[in-house]
């Protein structure tokens, strides 16, 4: 059944990816009110960070056989995108980061969206833990083939 990606590695990749998503979500929530000057490179406004997930596929040279039965090898975060949506403008001329019209650019982060994503990511993380445990139980049971 070959290949170098065991069931453990696949579940571990899922755990890592969802964990990274959770970290980004936490970062987004923490920076909801981080303003900045839009045209000032030293003080950029915070932009929402979004992970891009992609599945890992085993390459032909990794496996011993020429046509493996199954090439799926988990998931990874290929990039972290910055949301390019326009920032939320709030009129506040007294703010140090207000532009010439008196608007302050707040990051376009919606707390409800982030919470929903957090729940999805947490649920996926837990599912990956369950998958890992199932693989572990099966492997331990296989050790008993030779016993008695």
């Amino acid at each position: 059944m070959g290949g170098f990606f065991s069931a453990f590695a696949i579940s571990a990749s899922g755990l890592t990816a969802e964990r990274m998503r959770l970290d980004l979500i936490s970062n987004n929530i923490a920076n909801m009110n981080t303003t900045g000057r839009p045209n000032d490179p030293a003080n950029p406004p915070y932009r929402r960070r979004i992970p891009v997930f992609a599945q890992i596929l085993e390459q032909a040279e990794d496996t011993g056989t020429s046509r493996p039965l199954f090439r799926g090898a988990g998931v990874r975060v290929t990039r972290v995108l910055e949301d390019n949506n326009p920032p939320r403008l709030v009129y506040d001329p007294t703010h140090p980061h207000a532009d010439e019209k008196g608007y302050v650019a707040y990051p376009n982060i919606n707390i409800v969206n982030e919470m929903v994503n957090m729940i999805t990511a947490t649920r996926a993380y837990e599912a990956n833990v369950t998958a890992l445990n199932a693989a572990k139980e099966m492997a331990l049971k296989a050790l008993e083939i030779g016993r008695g």
Partner: protein
Amino acid sequence: MQVLPAGQPLLPQPAVSGEKRGGGGGSFSEMLNNALKKLNDAKVNADDLTLKFFTGEVQDFHQVAIAMQEASLTMQLAVEVRNKVIEAYQEVYRMQV
């Protein structure tokens, strides 16, 4: 209740059993050679799979466990056959002519 010695039911019967002189001997040694070859193959396979598992080529431990168990049973069978053969030889040797 008589427990049949384990060697008997599992060995294939020699095709021609008492008809040619030493006929039992010829096919018997072939049989032994085959058995030893199978035993060797089983052990080589078990060793090979074990190494492959620890280098990561084989992902499923059950394949290693199965190969090891089958090699062990084949070895056990070979030892029992050897014991029976020696017993049988000794019995023949002890016969009063």
